[in-house]
């Protein structure tokens, strides 16, 4: 029974580490480009988070399954050969799922697709996805990889939500499209423009690091 419990704890950790301890945006600092570009409004952040999380989940599952299969059916020599070209294999798998998302979003959510624009095809080169494929899915089981992807995807989405909430509320005076400050508020436009993303993100990183320092931690953030 202890073994089962330990296993469950292990799986829970695979999921939870993406939220805080190894948050892809604020701690590992991967996938900055879409985060900064898309965090203009909460709606965009949710759309991007969902799209990227789907790709991450699907590619992590497929890559973990494929690598486990290769480990079973290929001779050690062949396996070493395949390992050399693993990065192109990952990229093709990821690109296929991105194509699926690209077409689905274009068909079913054209308004969102127009807003996210260039950044939907660019999910291919989102470092979080390739990073998780290489660092986790390639050497772990399917279930663990799926949980890892869910946690990382959620961590990515939550980080974008945090940034976009600040930027939308202060920069446009709205929360998810609804005005919050009444008509007298004049929005601080700079936050919805490009510089606002860099400034907000830099200040948030500084804030998190400061909190960590105050608690006496010496983590990498």
């Amino acid at each position, binding site marked *: 029974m202890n073994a089962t419990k330990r296993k469950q704890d292990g799986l829970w950790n695979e999921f939870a580490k993406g939220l805080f301890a190894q948050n892809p945006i604020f701690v590992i*600092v*991967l996938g*900055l*480009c*879409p985060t*900064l*570009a898309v965090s203009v409004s909460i709606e965009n952040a949710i759309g991007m988070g969902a799209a990227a999380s789907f790709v991450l989940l699907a590619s992590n599952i497929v890559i973990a399954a494929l690598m486990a299969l290769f480990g079973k059916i290929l001779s050690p020599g062949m396996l070493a050969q395949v390992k050399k070209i693993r*990065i*192109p294999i990952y*990229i*093709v798998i990821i*690109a*296929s799922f*991105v*194509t699926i998302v*690209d*077409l689905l979003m274009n068909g079913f959510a054209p308004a969102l697709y127009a807003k996210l624009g*260039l950044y939907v*095809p*660019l999910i*291919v*080169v*989102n*470092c979080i996805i*390739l990073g998780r494929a290489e660092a986790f899915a390639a050497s772990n089981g399917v279930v663990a990889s799926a949980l890892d992807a869910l946690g990382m995807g959620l961590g990515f989405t939550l980080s974008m939500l945090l940034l976009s909430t600040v930027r939308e509320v202060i920069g446009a005076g709205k929360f998810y499209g609804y005005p919050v400050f009444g008509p007298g508020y004049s929005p601080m436009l*700079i936050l919805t*423009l*490009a*510089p*606002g*993303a*860099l*400034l907000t*993100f*830099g*200040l948030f*990183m*500084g*804030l998190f*690091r*400061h909190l960590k*320092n105050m608690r006496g931690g010496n983590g990498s953030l």
Partner: protein
Amino acid sequence: MDLFELFSIFIGVALVHNFIFCQFLGLCPYIGVTERTSSAMGMGMAVIFVMVISSAITWAVYQWLLVPLKITYLYIIAFILVIAAFVQLVEMFLQKSVPALYRALGIYLPLITTNCAVLGVVVLNMRLFDSPNSLVKCVIQGFGGGAGFMLAMLIMAGIRERLELADVPAALRGMPIALITAGLTAIAFLGFAGLSI
């Protein structure tokens, strides 16, 4: 094709819609490789080179292969494979025949495969100039994008070399202050939005 149009494409993508400050493409190398002006220069040169050539190659692949075969929906897979293969090829070629240049660009080349600015510029080429005679425009856009990228890298590296001597609050040292600096530089770049070309 008139020269003014090409010039406005160049200025547009290099300054007005600068990849780093306005579109947030290629931020990882921007933050990662800008601690020294020399490495920023090397990375910038490598990016210009790869952007120009991959703009031309992907234009050919798109117009001569994907469009006639009616498989344009595969553009994401096709472009990323072209870029990855091309970068690999350049790396092998330089290693064998121009070792001095390879040593200068060497470590930056593999990083470029996952540089979203390169994929960004070829997708932009496809979306903006989708026509059978747009090769020159695509190449100019690739060159302008790379030039704007290098400009941003050099500005940032110059500032960061001086920042090392500054008394930055402990919590902001390193990455956060680099981002805030980039934000302030981006405000300056907003001025280019007023250029009507």
